[in-house]
């Protein structure tokens, strides 16, 4: 703590700088060490997190490939509401296409964007939809999240499972209030309307791009 006697002013400055430098080296080393040591575990849990989301929209028994590595990079896709590049995961069983798992954004939620993850089966059906991020009113519009939905037996968002463009026309692919067949809870119409629209758009997009996407890139 105390300044050593016999040092000149410039000597003191150099000494202090050297001490500070040593501390910087030590703690930077500590940081890089911790970073490198924890990196594999953190990456593994990040992948596990992703898989958990995927599991919600597509059961693991339905495909046998490593879906997190069988991917296609996607440029900004306005059809999916994506302004930034994203990744499409491809699920296959015995090499045959099973489903595409895409991110999608509903831009017109009641409080801004609603981010979704959607599984689109190769046969045209919707495999499942989950909300990954939203700012809808708590207690009113947030039932689009399975966790917040009071109907535990049949959460709102599961209505989309099995719907396909072949069975459901665009006119029906709307909330009941707009003349469609999607149920919603009174009090919040804008939120389910936004999600419904985003899922419909994703279904159309998959219809047009499915074959190209499954053929692309030689992975598998």
């Amino acid at each position, binding site marked *: 703590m105390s*300044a050593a006697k016999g040092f000149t002013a410039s000597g003191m400055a150099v000494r202090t700088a050297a001490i500070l430098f040593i*501390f910087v080296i030590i703690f*930077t080393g500590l940081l890089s060490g*911790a970073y490198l040591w924890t990196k594999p575990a953190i990456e593994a849990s990040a992948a596990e997190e992703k898989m958990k989301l995927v599991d919600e929209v597509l059961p693991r028994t339905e495909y046998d490939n490593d879906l997190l590595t069988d991917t296609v990079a996607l440029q900004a896709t306005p059809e999916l509401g994506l302004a930034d590049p994203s990744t499409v995961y491809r699920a296959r069983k015995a090499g045959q296409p099973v489903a595409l798992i895409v991110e999608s954004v509903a831009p017109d939620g009641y409080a801004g964007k609603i981010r979704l993850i959607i599984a689109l089966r190769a046969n045209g059906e919707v495999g499942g939809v989950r909300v990954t991020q939203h700012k809808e009113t708590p207690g009113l519009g947030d039932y689009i999240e399975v966790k917040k939905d009071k109907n535990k037996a049949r959460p709102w968002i599961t209505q989309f499972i099995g719907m396909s463009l072949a069975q459901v026309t665009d006119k029906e692919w709307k909330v009941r209030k707009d003349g469609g067949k999607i149920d919603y809870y009174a009090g919040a119409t804008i939120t389910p309307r936004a999600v419904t629209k985003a899922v419909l758009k994703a279904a159309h997009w998959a219809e047009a791009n499915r074959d190209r996407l499954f053929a692309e890139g030689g992975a598998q």
Partner: protein
Amino acid sequence: MITREEFRTIAGNGIWKQNTSIAQILGLCPLLAVTTNAVNGIMLSLATIIVMALSNVAVASLRNLIPHEIRIPVFILIVAALVTVIDLLFNANLHELYLVLGIFIPLIVTNCIVLARVEAFAAKNPPLQSTFDGVFMGVGMLWTLALLGAMRELLGNGTVLGGIDMVFPNMQPIQLLPESYPGFLLALLPPGAFILLGCMIAWKNWMDAKAAERARLKPPAPVASAGCH
């Protein structure tokens, strides 16, 4: 080692006399943002306890090696490095807990109470005492934030323990006021936090004044607050 007397002083300072939130009034930025319910307040405090104990013990052990003139940059370096390392270790080894506490750990970087205790206590005291100081300062913060969060939540939503499902997935918040309670938005917004914190500070001062009167002592000296909130 540590004497009983020392331990009692450190604990008393942390929990009541120099309570971070209602006496030193430090670290208000994360405090106001987080205490919309009691669970969040408790979680932030738990993360702070870990960080404060570790940064205090690190600085106290190194205190004789740090030149006085450059102590602040070195302290900042130590605290920042420790917070980051704790964040990484939590993420890697205790991932379940990280999902709950994780969002609060980066918030601690904005909490000047950590640096304040390092500078005011750990730089002048041995490691063991400094560790206890860090822990008890955190405990003081814990009960204040829990109380503030609980009051804001009760006034704002009529519930207690909102957000408990984040920690224990099978527990639900308890609706204390009737369902028809319209809610009081101000309590959930930052101004409400300021107003309620003001009430808590007034309550503490009133308690202190009463205690001082009872003991026929001089009223407690006003606590200096640092220029960081």
